[in-house]
């Protein structure tokens, strides 16, 4: 009530620049600031990791196998004497790319199918929703296993499998949000202005559901990383000796009992931090893309 005084003199024109808004979002909430910091670190590892690590992640040195963390090898070495720190940092890029591309894929497929279902209703809705229900009926990780096993053991297929199991989540969120806005005044106004359905969907409805989709994206990023690592862990997916967090945890798992805990712990911790970061990032991302927060 207090901010809508019609007669009040216009306040200082609010800055609509995205940069100042990003600064505000990050500084306003400590958790968001922390999550963005962590994200920057992960992104940095993915970008320049392979060029700055002290050792070649694939080079084995049997004379230095199974060494505990030390100043020489910060995270220790594995059975083949490979430097675990280098491998963990280098693996960031692969895991990051898998997660990012699968989320991008599912966002395009699921997001568009969802808003179309919510906006058109009727047969489109029935078709898309039943498809999503069918996918949901499977245990999702087992479904991903099946897809990778059937299509073949490649990075592309991991991306596709991860995208497919996340499909229902995107469809449902996008469908519900589009459905609410279908009959709103601005959609009717857009129709009066001569926009066709396609334009209304992409130009009017999609931007409005971006805030909630951002939360979804951030959450599924973490889920996608876990899924990719999980597939590699059970031997489907990325093949050794490629550095990848899931494989590294799998390789180290047998050594935990014999006391070499560091082989599994550090890639596992990296995995956990990445997932944790994406889960925290959601709210911040939503605030970032929501113009209403820019008052």
């Amino acid at each position, binding site marked *: 009530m207090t901010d809508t005084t019609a007669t009040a003199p216009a306040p200082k024109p609010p800055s609509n620049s995205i940069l100042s808004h990003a600064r505000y979002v990050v500084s306003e909430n400590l958790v968001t600031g922390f999550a963005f910091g962590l994200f920057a670190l992960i992104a940095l590892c993915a970008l320049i990791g392979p060029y700055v690590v002290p050792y070649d992640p694939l080079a084995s040195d049997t004379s230095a196998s199974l060494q505990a963390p030390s100043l020489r090898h910060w995270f220790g070495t594995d059975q083949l004497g490979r430097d675990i720190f280098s491998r963990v940092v280098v693996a960031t890029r692969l895991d990051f790319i898998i997660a990012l591309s699968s989320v991008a894929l599912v966002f395009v497929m699921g997001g568009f199918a969802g808003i179309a279902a919510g906006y058109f209703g009727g047969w489109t809705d029935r078709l898309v929703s039943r498809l999503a229900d069918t996918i949901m009926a499977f245990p999702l990780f087992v479904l991903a296993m099946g897809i990778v096993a059937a299509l073949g053991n490649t990075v592309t297929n991991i991306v596709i499998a991860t995208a497919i199991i996340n499909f229902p989540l995107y469809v449902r969120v996008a469908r519900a949000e589009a459905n609410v806005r279908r009959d709103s005044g*601005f959609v009717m106004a857009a*129709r009066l202005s001569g926009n066709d359905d396609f334009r209304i969907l992409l130009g009017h409805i999609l931007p409005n559901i971006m805030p909630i989709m951002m939360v979804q994206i951030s959450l599924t990023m973490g889920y996608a990383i876990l899924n990719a690592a999980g597939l590699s862990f059970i031997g489907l997916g990325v093949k050794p000796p490629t550095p990848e967090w899931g494989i590294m945890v799998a390789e180290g798992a047998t050594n935990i009992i014999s006391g070499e805990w560091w082989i599994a712990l550090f890639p596992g911790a990296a995995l956990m931090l990445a997932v944790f970061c994406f889960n925290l990032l959601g709210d911040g991302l939503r605030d970032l893309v929501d113009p*209403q927060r820019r008052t």
Partner: protein
Amino acid sequence: MTEIPLLDVRDLTVEFQTRRGIVKAVQHVDLTIAKGETVGIVGESGSGKSVTSYAVMRILDRAGRIADGSVMFTNLDLRNAAEDAMRDLRGREISMIFQNPRAALNPIRKVGRQIEDVLLQHVKAAPSEVTEKAVEILEQVRIARPRERYHAYPFELSGGMCQRVVIALALACQPQLLIADEPTTGLDVTTQKTVMELIVELTRARGMSTILITHDLGLAALYCDKIVVMEKGRVVEAAPSRAVFTAPEHPYTKKLMRATPRPGVSLRDLLPEGEAPTGATIAKLPTAEKAPLLVVEKLIKEYPRKGTQGLAGTLKKLTQQKPAPEPEVFRAVDGISFSVNRGESVGLVGESGCGKSTTSTMVMRLIDKTDGTILFDGEDIGAIPAKKFALLPLRRRIQMVFQDPTDSLNPRFTAARAIADPILRLGDLKGRDAIRARCEELARQVGLPVELLDRFPHQLSGGQKARVGIARAIALKPDLVILDEPTAALDVSVQAVVLNLLQELKDTLGMSYLFVSHDLNVVRLLCDRVIVMRAGKIVEEGATDRVLFSPEAAYTRDLLAAIPHPNFDKVPAAAARMATGS
């Protein structure tokens, strides 16, 4: 005054913590309410009238706090009372009626049970007799067949009925003070009248005090002993109703009084003195040609009734021996015919559910008709499916101004982008600069400061958003503009400005208006002819003055009589209220 007032608010200041620092929503407000007194708090949105009442109830949201002043309820200090004590007090001693009755009721709980909840919470009835008591209370608020309605869910009741249930909830524990926050906004005038009379009668019978929060000066004057006028968080005038209504002292009250549409004034009179636009100098376009622009004949729109379609409906039909007694379709619009001439404004008036909005959306070609013809400039546009029509060049000749300026603007488009949207899709202009220039021209035409064009809707005030909506509608120079209650969501002073703007635009651009509204006083100002609708049919049609001053249909007379307007010249306020109250 020797006896202690029931509620004594002194020097109340309420602050809100926001991103842009502390906002003082209410500043140094004094308010006293004696036992049995009815006080109206009147003001426009943002005046702090609701915040004041929330502060009294201590239900401010987390960002708000009482910064200064005292709130005394008889001998109890409400500002410093413990939360436990407040919880006990709310509902039992002070209760509240909210603006939107449907939102104030739990949608998945039977209304009777909701009343029982209040009674049990405050131990006003034993569990064994609570049902009887709830039914009795429903009866008191004049709900017909209370025993049946006890089992109704809020969605099964009309808006007026829901508000009665909310009143029943508020009065269940016999409180001493009732705070009614815009209790009739969103209700039809005839329903408003019955609801207000019910509130006044019940509170009077119990010797309760009432605070009526409203933006409608006429409503407050009709039902209150005393009126407090608020502006921007401050009390600007506090006096007996009669004094405020007949001889307002503060300039703001005068402005409010002036801006309220009422019989016997013209559109220009609504604006404050000295601010009248240059109306006289505008060269009116010749409107002599009486060629009909829009002709609607025997228009019908039917909707299927619930449960008669699809599998469930088929099963029902199969299992039923006799055919269902009621028809399978519901006629929202039942064979209406009318016409709109070039340069003419026609008002389409009726209460909610009368089919006026369905009619306008059909003429707008957003939904398809069931039967009948819609001739626009000689062309049968009713025959073109709504989906196809959106892409035809004809689209640009019929545009619309929506009811809720907030809802009708895409939250992610700036004002300039919103205005440019129809130009981009249907217009001839090409190039960023040309479109921008046109947007600025339109902004100037509707009186929107050009520097506001780059703002998002939530950064604009209600009046500014309305201007953006109007600019968008006239961007393609349409022949017919449908105005769907364009001022219903606006404050009276903003409404006065917007109505004048619409009139001015019509005179300069030579458009025709189809003005859809529930408010006869507003329609009277803008329209040449009025069509009164009820239950999908036209009840009365004719020149505005004829319909409003000597209405033929009984329904039109009822509508006119329900508009709250105290007549202080003939009868004293109390007598007038008694007459209407009982």
